């Protein structure tokens, strides 16, 4: 019985972690599909989202879910600014050069963000310990904080799903995914959609950061290892697919939680790597396609 309870507990923790991954990974795969840019800075925005939450929480003690509502619009703006400043100048290059430049630019910015953050706020890890009552269902301890996070993730995913189906911007995004030239011909302003996608994607990463800082601790150097996990998820799920990101995130989250429990937490990145290598060997096109 005890084994079963541990098992359920681990699966729950893994699902939660996977959901947090999936949010940010979906943003990464959207950017990759719409703009052909691999945004290596993505994990840094998760870190910054967590950091903003930490700072506001430490200063005011507000409910983190209230802070979440402020983080979303703030990072949409950050995403717009980031795209305008660093991505727009290279966007019109021919494919091979775009790829090369986007790697160089985003790695450079990621390094700069990490170093500046660690210079200003110090290299120590930070966490938000926001306690909410836990309850026990059938011998399994469920913290209501984690339940709230899970519900928020589900709500956000459902919202995103309908947003991509119903709204004009969502339809424009899907049109570009299906056929870029066709979308241009019928009058979709592709550069504007690209800017918009950066706003959404980076704000999603920051939201994942809020959930991350509530569950774990953040430090200035978590960004790049996280981006690697997102890559594994996007490769696993297939790019541009919301369902794919979700499934990929859940698989990786559960696998990492189990590896962390049985082998030690520093092996979790290795799990992401083995997943990545396995996927590349067995099914290089990913599990899902489409939006």
């Amino acid at each position, binding site marked *: 019985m005890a084994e079963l309870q541990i098992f359920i507990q681990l699966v729950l923790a893994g699902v939660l972690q996977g959901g947090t991954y999936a949010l940010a990974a979906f943003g990464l795969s959207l950017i*990759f599909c719409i703009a052909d*840019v*691999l945004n*290596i800075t993505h994990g840094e925005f998760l870190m910054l989202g967590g950091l903003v939450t930490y700072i506001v929480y430490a200063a005011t003690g507000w409910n983190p879910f209230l802070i979440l509502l402020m983080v979303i619009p703030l990072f949409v703006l950050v995403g717009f600014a980031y795209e305008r400043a*660093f991505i727009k*100048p*290279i966007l019109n*290059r*021919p494919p*091979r*050069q775009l*790829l*090369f*430049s*986007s*790697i*160089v*630019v985003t*790695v*450079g*910015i*990621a*390094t*700069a*963000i*990490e*170093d*500046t953050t660690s*210079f200003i706020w110090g290299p120590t890890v930070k966490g938000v310990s926001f306690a909410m009552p836990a309850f026990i269902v059938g011998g399994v301890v469920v913290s209501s904080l984690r339940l709230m996070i899970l519900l928020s993730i589900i709500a956000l995913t459902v919202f995103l799903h309908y947003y991509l189906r119903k709204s004009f911007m969502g339809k424009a995004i899907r049109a570009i995914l299906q056929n870029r030239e066709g979308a241009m011909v019928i009058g979709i302003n592709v550069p504007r959609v690209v800017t918009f996608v950066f706003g959404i994607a980076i704000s999603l990463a920051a939201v994942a950061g809020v959930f991350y800082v509530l569950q774990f601790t953040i430090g200035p*150097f978590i960004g*790049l*290892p996280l*981006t*690697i996990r997102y*890559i594994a998820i996007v*490769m696993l799920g297939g790019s541009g697919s919301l369902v794919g990101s979700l499934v990929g995130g859940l698989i990786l989250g559960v696998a990492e939680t189990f590896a962390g429990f049985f082998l*030690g937490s*520093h*092996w979790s*990145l*290795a799990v*992401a*790597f083995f997943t*990545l*290598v396995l996927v*590349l*060997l067995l099914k*290089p096109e990913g599990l899902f396609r489409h939006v």
Partner: protein
Amino acid sequence: MLAALLLAPRFIDPYWVVFLLLLFMYVGIGSSFNITAGYLGYVNLGHYAFFGISAYGFAILYAKGAPFALCMATGVISTVIFAALISYPFLRLKGGYFALANFGLIKLFELVAGSLREFTGGTQGISLTPGYRPLQTYYMFLAVALFTIVVCYMIPKSRFGLALFSIREDEEVAEAFGINVNRYKMGAYILSSIFPALLGAGYAWYAAYIDPEIVFGTDKALLPVTMAMLGGTGTFLGPIFGAVFMLIIEEFLWTSTWLPLWIKSLHLTMLGLILAAVGIFSPGGLVTLTPIAAVFRKAGMGRFLGAAHKTLKAD
């Protein structure tokens, strides 16, 4: 030039011997990075991992008292085997994914080296029998750097190089023309791992101490890559020029006393911003900028700016 470099340690200050030695190291790493990034078009951000793996392979054996040649061979061979194993799945990744997966390897190795205490001494690293050997290392690194440069010079002239270029321009077309794309990609990847492996083992011997941070640290890993890209990948001359340029700047800017301390502590930020600026303003690197290219042409080195430069302009 070569004679001057061979005789230099007799006449210059030991400080500059070490400076040149590091320069050779970065030229070697940067130029071999150019084989995959410049010639093949696959930006291997984790190129420095080869350096670290070899350094650890060397140090683990050397600390146990094995002879130098055996340790060296172990370091290099284990790196090459590793490169061969990882090349097959990783070269299926396209562009940015490839770059990041490789970069992740470095982070992974930093973690693994830090946690496998029995083998690697954990984060405390491995200390070898200390010895001050700048002279031997100087000649060794000079030889490796020359070796790298010669290989990098020969590749574009060979059939192998032509295959790499055509894969870089368009993989599907290359395949349609009957080039065994996978074999050439893996060949370039494995070939490029040999040089940092040689330097890594040499570095462990020279420094007599390594730890995960020294051979797998992010800033250490990004430095040679930044140098090569700053100078210009895809050209033969770019990585060499980049290494010289960057080291001279580092030497005079970061050690100067007039620069405020807070800028110096943001060293890595500056490195990142330089990298971003190169990407935005000069994707071909410094050697493709008109004034600098003109200087090289005047010095009769125009042909080293090479065919790679022309194709960069064409697309």
